[in-house]
């Protein structure tokens, strides 16, 4: 065991060739809160091409120690081209440094990497946490309290995480407020993380990247999403929703009922097992508002529900509503937009 980093809170920082990802900085804010509460040092780890640049950038976020590996492409290839490698590197860090906690953003990559590191070291992992603190009345070196998301965030779980070293992923949106940027600590000390030796596990490898089709507005990033559910009644009426979406510079999203019936492709599904959206306005047409769907659209700034049922669950989530049949309301909105010569806002 190297004494360095013992008891530390270490954050796995994802980065786009040197630029720390916003989700990782949000996880860093939660990690800092825990480190402060425990009186533990805060460190980071960055992997892959640009890791050293990311480490330097983290100095401005108050990091004094950053572990890095595979900054150059080198012979080992890019670590994320073999999904097992990042987890192996972090497992090695866990074994050699015995930190108090290893924390990452609950992104697909952050989750997968921490899950594999936890699996290799047989340590506990709490996924999608919104809060973490020392457990009341317990030895903070042995037990932490966490609040985490269940049912995609429809239910919160308060849990106890026992162990001298534990892993956590931080849910999107957690720690976004109240995160005070720490003063710059100068250039952080960069420690090259050694491979654990032996043959790297390259059994699974990336063989091809297929770029997304160009053109169109991405559902996850659209400023306006026009959603259709069971109330649309069949595949044909989606032309109306597409027309409205086009007038607003947005795109169409659908509920699980719609993809299950084969009316629209799964790539358009908004929900717990589809895409999470965060538009300025979500226009939910003929959607009842099942939990599975609400989980996907709760990031919307405002929801306009168009529904014949004034008591549908979506009405309790909506900011605005029109009570009526979408087959009459949507054409009327389209006509009114055309009459006024409206163009999509900047």
């Amino acid at each position: 065991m190297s004494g360095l980093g013992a008891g530390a809170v270490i954050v796995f920082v994802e980065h786009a060739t040197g630029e720390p990802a916003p989700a990782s900085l949000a996880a860093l804010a939660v990690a800092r809160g825990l480190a402060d509460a425990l009186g533990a040092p805060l460190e980071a780890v960055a992997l892959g091409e640009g890791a050293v640049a990311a480490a330097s950038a983290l100095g401005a976020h108050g990091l004094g120690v950053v572990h890095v590996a595979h900054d150059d492409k080198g012979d080992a290839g890019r670590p994320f081209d073999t999904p097992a490698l990042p987890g192996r590197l972090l497992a090695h860090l866990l074994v050699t440094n015995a930190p108090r906690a290893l924390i990452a953003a609950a992104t697909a990559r952050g989750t997968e990497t921490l899950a594999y590191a936890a699996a290799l070291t047989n340590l506990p992992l709490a996924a999608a946490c919104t809060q973490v603190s020392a457990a009341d009345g317990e030895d903070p070196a042995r037990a932490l309290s966490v609040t985490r998301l269940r049912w995609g965030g429809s239910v919160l779980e308060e849990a106890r995480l026992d162990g001298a070293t534990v892993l956590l992923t931080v849910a999107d949106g957690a720690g976004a407020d109240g995160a005070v940027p720490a003063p710059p600590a100068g250039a952080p000390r960069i420690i090259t993380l050694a491979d654990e030796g032996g043959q790297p596990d390259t059994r699974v490898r990336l063989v091809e990247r297929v770029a997304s089709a160009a053109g169109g507005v991405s559902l996850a990033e659209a400023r306006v999403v026009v959603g259709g559910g069971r109330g649309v009644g069949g595949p044909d009426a989606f032309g109306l929703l597409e027309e409205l979406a086009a007038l607003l510079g947005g795109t169409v999203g659908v509920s699980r009922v719609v993809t299950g019936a084969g009316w629209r492709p799964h790539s358009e599904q908004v929900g717990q097992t589809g895409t999470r959206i965060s538009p300025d306005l979500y226009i939910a047409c003929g959607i009842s508002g099942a939990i599975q769907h609400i989980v996907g659209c709760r990031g919307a700034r405002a929801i306009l529900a168009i529904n014949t049922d004034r008591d549908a669950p979506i009405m309790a989530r909506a900011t605005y509503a029109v009570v009526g049949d979408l087959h009459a309301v949507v054409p009327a909105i389209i006509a009114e937009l055309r009459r006024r010569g409206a163009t999509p806002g900047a």
Partner: protein
Amino acid sequence: MNILVCVKRVPATGGRVTLTGDGLAIDARFLSFTISPHEECAVEEAVRLVEASGGGTTTVLTLGAEAAADQLRDALAVGMTRAIHLVTDGEDWDPMATAAAIVGVVRADAAEGFDHDLVLFGNEAADSGDYQVPIRVAAALDRPWLTGVKGLDVEGTSVRARRDGTRGQEVYHVPLPAVLAVREGLNRPRYPSIPGRLRAKKVAIMATRPERQVGGPTMIRLRVPDEEDAQVHVLGTGAEAAPAVVDLLESLGLVNP
């Protein structure tokens, strides 16, 4: 080819979630039960792959209360051929304990000649959302793994697996035997047929009570987040509401007047 699919019985939540009085579970008295959409796709994929490979077994496995046998029957009804039930008293098992029990099944099956070329999971359970059981199982068995899979083709002794990456789709080479966590969108699951239901009734479910390992995290209680019920502003009724809607779009800056 032999495929094992792991599923979890969860309540089919509708528009609202209500907790039991002790705050330890969802009040499911008025709910039906199901499995995650991701897991429905895993079941469908297993049935298709074994049909296409010209032979083999498809085994569905669950860990849960006695009643979880319903979910095994549902999977048998759409074409799975074997069912294994790790029976619990209904309490929530943490992901480490769950993975250990599943590893035990894979090893026991291998000892009886059912070597599973693929172990399929849903990407995450609908309820607990732990995102780690598949990877823990793969690590314990020292098998290659991939998560987030939305497309797969078997090519001899390996699979080509596709998943969404940060910049488009990523395609991976995964040698068999492997563990894959799949996402909804992989396929469109079929509905059970009446003959399928009848056939499912005749399959003997292999039930055992596994020993529970201690892992973590430990659930203390659940709560429903306090979300202020939005004060909905009703803009109007029917087509006559259109001018008010367009006024709103203008005021939000979504269209230029």
